[in-house]
C-alpha cells in the first residue's frame, strides 16, 4: 500500500459532511444531524471544508442546480450522497465513508469552482451614514448552514450592513409535509391525536429552533445540548429523563447574561405588530427582541415537557398552537413570520440579521401546504 493510499484512507476515517437539506427534508435532516453527532463527524459549513456532500430530503427539480454548484466547489477526494428518507441516512453515510477511502485520486488539476461566473461586481451607493460605499447583491439561502431549508432572502449589502432585503420566490416543491406541524394537520383532518404527542413535537420543534439560534450565536456547545434533547424527545424519551436536563439548559442559556447582552434590542417585534402581521405563536407572545423569543421557547418547552404523559386528552388543533403559531392551512403561521423578515432585516448588520431569522425560525415547508391547497382548489 502506497503512502497516498494510506493518507486517503486515514483522512476518510472521520469525514466532514456538508449537509444540504431540500425543502420537505426535515425528518431526513434530523436523522442526519443525530447520526453525525453520534459518530463525531464534523458538519462542514462550506464546500471547501467538506469531504462528503449529503443531500437530504425529497427531490426538488427547481433546486437541483444548488447541490450541483456546491458539488463543483468541493475539492477531491469527495463523495456525493443522497438520502430521501430518515432510514436511509445511516447506510448512506457508511457507504460514503467507504467510497471516500477508495476514491479515484491524483494527480489532480486544480478544482475550478464557480465556473458559473462568480459573484456579481459590487457597485457604489450611499450607505446609512451618507457615505458612498460599494453595494453587493447577495442571496442568503436556500442552503446556508443553520438556516431554514429553502428560505431565500435577497439582500443588498454595504460592508456587512443590510441595506435592502426582500423574500425570494418560494420554490415549487413536491408533496408538502411540514414535519413540525404534522399532528395539527392530522387533527384538523379529523384524526384523533393525543395532546401528549403534539406537546412532544412542539417541544422538539422549539429545541430545534433553539439549537439553530445557539449555533448562529456562536455557541456550539449549547447548540449540541439543545439538539441532543430534541433527538431524545423524538425518540420517545420519558419526561423524567428530559425535564431535568432541559431545566439545566434553560438555566444556562435563558439566564446567560452574556447571551442577553449580545442579543438584546435585536429584531424588536411588539405583540401588537406581531398580531397585525398575522403572527400568533411564541414570537407574538414574547412580544420583544431576540432574548424575549428564546426565553419564550424555553418556558414553552418546559411547559410542554410537563404534559408528555397526558395520553387521554385529544389535541384540539384550534385551541392548541402549533410550534410556530395557530394552525391554519390557508394562512400557515410560518408565512406570516417570513413576511416580517424584510422589515426586520433592513439596516441590521449581517450577524444580527442571522439572529433575527434564527429567532423567528420560519419553516418554509409550511407555506408549501398552502400553495398545494391553492393548486388543488
Amino acid at each position, binding site marked *: 500500500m502506497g503512502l497516498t493510499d494510506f493518507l486517503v484512507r486515514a*483522512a476518510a476515517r*472521520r469525514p466532514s459532511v456538508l449537509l444540504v437539506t431540500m425543502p420537505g427534508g426535515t425528518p431526513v435532516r434530523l436523522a442526519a444531524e443525530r447520526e453525525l453527532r453520534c459518530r463525531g463527524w464534523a458538519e462542514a459549513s*462550506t464546500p471547501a471544508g467538506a469531504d462528503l456532500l449529503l443531500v437530504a430530503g425529497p427531490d426538488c427539480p427547481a433546486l437541483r442546480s444548488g447541490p450541483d454548484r456546491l458539488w463543483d466547489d468541493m475539492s477531491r477526494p469527495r463523495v456525493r450522497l443522497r438520502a430521501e428518507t430518515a432510514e436511509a441516512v445511516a447506510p448512506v453515510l457508511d457507504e460514503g465513508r467507504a467510497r471516500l477511502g477508495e476514491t479515484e485520486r491524483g494527480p489532480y488539476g*486544480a478544482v*475550478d469552482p464557480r465556473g458559473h461566473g462568480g459573484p456579481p461586481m459590487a457597485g457604489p451607493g450611499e450607505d446609512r451614514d451618507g457615505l458612498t460605499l460599494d453595494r453587493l447583491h447577495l442571496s442568503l439561502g436556500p442552503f*446556508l448552514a*443553520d438556516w431554514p431549508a429553502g428560505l431565500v432572502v435577497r439582500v443588498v449589502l454595504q460592508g456587512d450592513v443590510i441595506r435592502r432585503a426582500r423574500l425570494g420566490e418560494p420554490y415549487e416543491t413536491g408533496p408538502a409535509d411540514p414535519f413540525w406541524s404534522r399532528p395539527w394537520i392530522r387533527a384538523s383532518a379529523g384524526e384523533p391525536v393525543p395532546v401528549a404527542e403534539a406537546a412532544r413535537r412542539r417541544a422538539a420543534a422549539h429545541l430545534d429552533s433553539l439549537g439553530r439560534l445557539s449555533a448562529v450565536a456562536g455557541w456550539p*456547545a449549547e447548540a449540541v445540548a439543545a439538539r*441532543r434533547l430534541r433527538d431524545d424527545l423524538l425518540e420517545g424519551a420519558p419526561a423524567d429523563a428530559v425535564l431535568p436536563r432541559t431545566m439545566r439548559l434553560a438555566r444556562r442559556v435563558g439566564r446567560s447574561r452574556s447571551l442577553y447582552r449580545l442579543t438584546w434590542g435585536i429584531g424588536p417585534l411588539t405583540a401588537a405588530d406581531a398580531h397585525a402581521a398575522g403572527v400568533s405563536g411564541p414570537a407574538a407572545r414574547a412580544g420583544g427582541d431576540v432574548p424575549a423569543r428564546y426565553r419564550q421557547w424555553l418556558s414553552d418547552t418546559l411547559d410542554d415537557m410537563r404534559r408528555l404523559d397526558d395520553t387521554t386528552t385529544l389535541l384540539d388543533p384550534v385551541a392548541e398552537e402549533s410550534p410556530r403559531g395557530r394552525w391554519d392551512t390557508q394562512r400557515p403561521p410560518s408565512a406570516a413570520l417570513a413576511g416580517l423578515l424584510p422589515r426586520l432585516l433592513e439596516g441590521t448588520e449581517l450577524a*444580527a440579521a442571522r439572529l433575527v431569522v434564527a429567532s423567528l425560525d420560519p419553516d418554509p415547508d409550511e407555506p408549501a401546504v398552502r400553495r398545494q391547497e391553492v393548486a388543488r382548489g
Partner: protein
Amino acid sequence: MVDAGKWWTLPVAPALLLGFAVLAVAGKTALDDRGAGRSVTPVGVLRPLLAVPRALVAQPRRLPASDRLLWRLGVVTVPVAAVLSTLVIPFGNHVVADLSVGVVWFNAMEVLTWAGLWLAGWGPNAAFSLVGGYRFLAQGLAYELPLMFALISAATGAQSLRVTDIAGAQHGLWYAVWMPFAFAVHLTGVLAFSFLGPFAYPAGRDIADGVLGETSGVDRLLLRAGRWLWLAAGAAMAVPLFLGGGAGPGLPAWAWSLVKTVLVLGLLVWVLRRLPALRADRYVELAWVVLLPAAIVQVLVPALVDLGP
C-alpha cells in the same frame, strides 16, 4: 539563572508549542465528546489530527479573481507568527532568545496576525470571507489596547521589557495575585488573537466559517493550526508574565513551567465552551468603556508601587 540561545532550544521550542497545541485540541475534543454524549477515548480525542492527511491529499482549489499571493501570505503568517512569538518565552531555565524587548516582540508577532487574518479574508474574493476579515479588525480594535496595557502592567512591575526579568522579579508573589485584572485581560486577549470560542466571531458559523470558509487543503490546515498554536503560545506567555515563570518549591523549573502552562491552557479550553460568540459591535463598547480605563488604572498600581521607595 536563565540560559539563552542554546542551539537545541531552536527545534525544541516549536515542538513544545506544537505539543501544547495538540493537548489543547485533544482537551477541547474530549469536552465536546462528553457534551454530545459520545464516549471519550484517548484515540478518539486525537481525531482532529486527521486534518493533516486530509490536507495532504486534497486537490488544490482555485477561485475566480482571488488574490492568491496575498491570500497565501495571510494564511502562512498566522502560524508562523505564533511560532516566532515563542522565541522570547522562557520555559524553565531556558529561552531561545533573551531579548531586552521581549514583551514588545511577543506583542509585535501577535499584531502580525491582524495582517494575516485580514489578508486571509480578503484573498478569496468571497463575501463571507471578507466579512470575516473585517470582523477580525473590529475585534482587534476591541481587545488589542487592553491587552497591551496588561502586558505593560507586568513590564512596569519588573521595570523591564525582558521576559526573563519579569519572571524573576516576582519573588514568590505572582503578578497574577496583585495584578489580577491584567492577568484576566491577558487571558481574554489570548482567546481573542486565537479567534477561538467566544472570539471565533471572524470564523463564525453565521457567515459560513468566515475567514476559514473558502480555505481548503494545506491552507485550511495552517490557519486552523495557527489558532491553536496561538492559544498555546498565549498560555505559555502567561506563565512568566503573571505566574512567576519556572519558580516553585520541590520540582525543577521546567516541571513548574510545564504544570503552570498546562493549567492555564486547561482553563482557556474550558472557557471556550462556556460563552457565546462576543460580537465586536457589542464587545467594543465593553472593551473601551470598561476594560481599557480599568487596564490603565491597573498599570498605575505597579507604577506607584515602584515609585514608592
